[in-house]
């Protein structure tokens, strides 16, 4: 009996992934595409409305504001993430004391729940009671409205997100740094190159693929900014931390505008695709040069 069906075994083995793919990826994507042309609040029957959702999107000031906010976040977060991660990776790649401990310590925030990290940082950023402002006041500096001043709220969130994720990118950079052949550094030493020259002419070109990967990963991660503004600011003050994903979530799950949320999601996916393609092209061209 078992021998009769032996040729089916591979299909059984890949079945979990196939089912997962169709249920959680293919179907939602196709259904979202279908929803873009409909009005649907989950409880009432769907209504075909043609391109009305796209017309609404073009006139939706808040959606473009949320895209702008997300880009602001990326502009702060991505370079900061790369610089900080590379800096610590470079230090942790040296033979320093307690290296193993520090590597683990930097990675710790990555595995802590985003909600927990966000709530902790909310305590740090508090205006009257936050630890950061207490430190500022103790040295005679004025308090800062980290989360209540519109121009500071998004940079504050970007700093927190960098702290949360930097451990992951440190690990990636460490792998990259360890793949640079040591002979290059020995040759540079013989030529009398200083520390900076070795970093800019050997290390950076050597870890270029890692930089590209970190750039793309942190950009994609940055585009999905949601938990931090959702918990800390709710998108405020004055919509300055309303990220695109938060806005799409609000449309979908606060107001049940499922068709419109699908349209926003589709357009946002295209924007992410364009940005990643541009980034990839730029880095590849720079690498070629």
């Amino acid at each position, binding site marked *: 009996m*078992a021998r009769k069906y032996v040729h089916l075994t591979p299909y059984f083995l890949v079945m979990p992934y196939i089912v997962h793919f169709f249920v959680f990826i293919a179907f939602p994507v196709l259904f979202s595409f279908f929803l873009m042309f409909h009005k649907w609040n989950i*409880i009432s029957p769907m209504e075909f409305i043609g391109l009305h959702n796209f017309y609404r999107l073009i006139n939706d000031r808040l959606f473009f504001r949320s895209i702008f906010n997300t880009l602001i976040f990326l502009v702060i977060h991505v370079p900061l993430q790369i610089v900080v991660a590379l800096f610590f990776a470079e230090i942790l790649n040296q033979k320093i004391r307690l290296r193993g401990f520090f590597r683990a310590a930097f990675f710790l925030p990555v595995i802590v729940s985003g909600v927990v990290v966000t709530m902790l940082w909310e305590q740090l950023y508090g205006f009257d009671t936050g630890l950061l402002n207490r430190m500022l006041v103790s040295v005679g500096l004025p308090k800062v409205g980290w989360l*209540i001043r519109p121009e500071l709220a998004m940079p504050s969130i970007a700093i927190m997100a960098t702290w949360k994720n930097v451990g992951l990118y440190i690990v990636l950079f460490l792998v990259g740094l360890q793949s640079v052949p040591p002979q290059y550094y020995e040759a540079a030493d013989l030529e009398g190159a200083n520390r900076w020259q070795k970093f800019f002419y050997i290390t950076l070109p050597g870890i270029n693929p890692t930089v590209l990967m970190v750039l793309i990963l942190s950009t994609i991660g940055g585009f999905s900014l949601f938990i931090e503004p959702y918990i800390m600011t709710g998108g405020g003050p*004055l919509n300055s931390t309303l990220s695109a994903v938060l806005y799409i979530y609000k449309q979908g799950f606060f107001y049940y505008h499922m068709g419109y949320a699908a349209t926003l999601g589709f357009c946002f996916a295209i924007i992410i695709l364009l940005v990643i393609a541009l980034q990839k092209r730029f880095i590849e061209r720079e690498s070629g040069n």
Partner: protein
Amino acid sequence: MRNTHINFLYRFLRVFLLIAVLAGIQCDENNRSGRDALLYWSANNPDEIHFAREMVKNWNESDPKIQVVHQPVPEGRSSEEIILAAVVGKTTPDIYSNMWQGDVEAYAQANVLIPLDTITGFLNFMTARCDSETIAEVTSLDGHIYQVPWKINPIMLLYNENIFENIGFQDPPDTYSDFLEAAARIQKDSDGDGYIDRWIGYCEVLVVWYQRFFDFYPLYLAASGGGSLVKGSEVKFNNEYAVEVFRFLKTLYEKRYLPRERLSARSDAFLAGVIATRFAGPWEIAHAEKFKPEGFKYSFQSMPVPDEQEGPVYTYGDPKNIVIFNTCKDPARAWRFIRFMIEKENDLKFLEITSQIPRRRNLFHDEFFRNFFQQNPKMIPFALQAEHVKGTDQSPVLKEIFDIISQEYEACVIYGTKSPETAIADAARAVELILP
């Protein structure tokens, strides 16, 4: 070796299928056993579960023909989300007793609720229990009634008596001018670090639509004598009352009488004396009695109103009502259970067990409830206020309306980037666009 693995795989699949089939049969048996009983979901807080269990027990003992099975609404981020999921999955109970009034219109338009006014005896019972204002408030845009007005938690001004005595106020402030004067006296830098650490109150600064039920909306109802925000497809809040409320709250923030920092992460700011007032409901009584420091005195009074305001002071009642879903096979039988649950005797039990106010006319002056209020004097302001409360307007886009108001509230009131007149006019224009 390879065959052993394959045999193991098939054996595993057979056992898995057998378990699945048995589980299916068991599930089906469970459904069949409760087929004739009415399923009733209550709110899932301990007091309401206690009340619901007692009601169901008494009912089942008195009428064995119509058995009711009680279950608290399943846990989730909010009961509203659970109900939505149940509606989508067609797993709604027959009766649900924690329906937020603002959600009813959308469900009614989606035809998932039973129009209760079509059930014999419903209207007679309702006109005896509620005043005409309440019945008008719960009547949907199509003229039917889909909900039984059941309970309210009026939003009032909770205040710290000690602080007001210390600043020379015998009575708490009841007008905007008094409130601002008290706020100036209460504002304090206790530790001398140059920063204010005592305020008259606190309003949530997050731009979340439902937070406006605890600041703008009750103040608007108080100022306008229970006015509407919208009526059908017409905007009603573009008026001097809404502008006055925005101006009042804007002044409080401008003068730093209210903090812009979120205080929710701290220990209870009211009981700690960090804030002197709070816009709150009767749920605060149990909390305060449990956690208040020694000598702490507090009380409740109506929401502050504009100086020239006359007449009764309204507020938001935060009503939660009872509905019958269209998955119910026998709505008339479900109604008989609901009618039993909201009889006068059971309303008294509800008061005693949950400290929430039943929405029935003349509650405070009814002899039947006198003993309760004599024994629970903190509940008296709420019972008196119950005569002048309002729920929400009937609109399928109520959340969007409150979200738009919230956006303008943040811009004008908290950050002062717009004048009250402009903010209200902008909100009204935006709401006009979304009204069906």
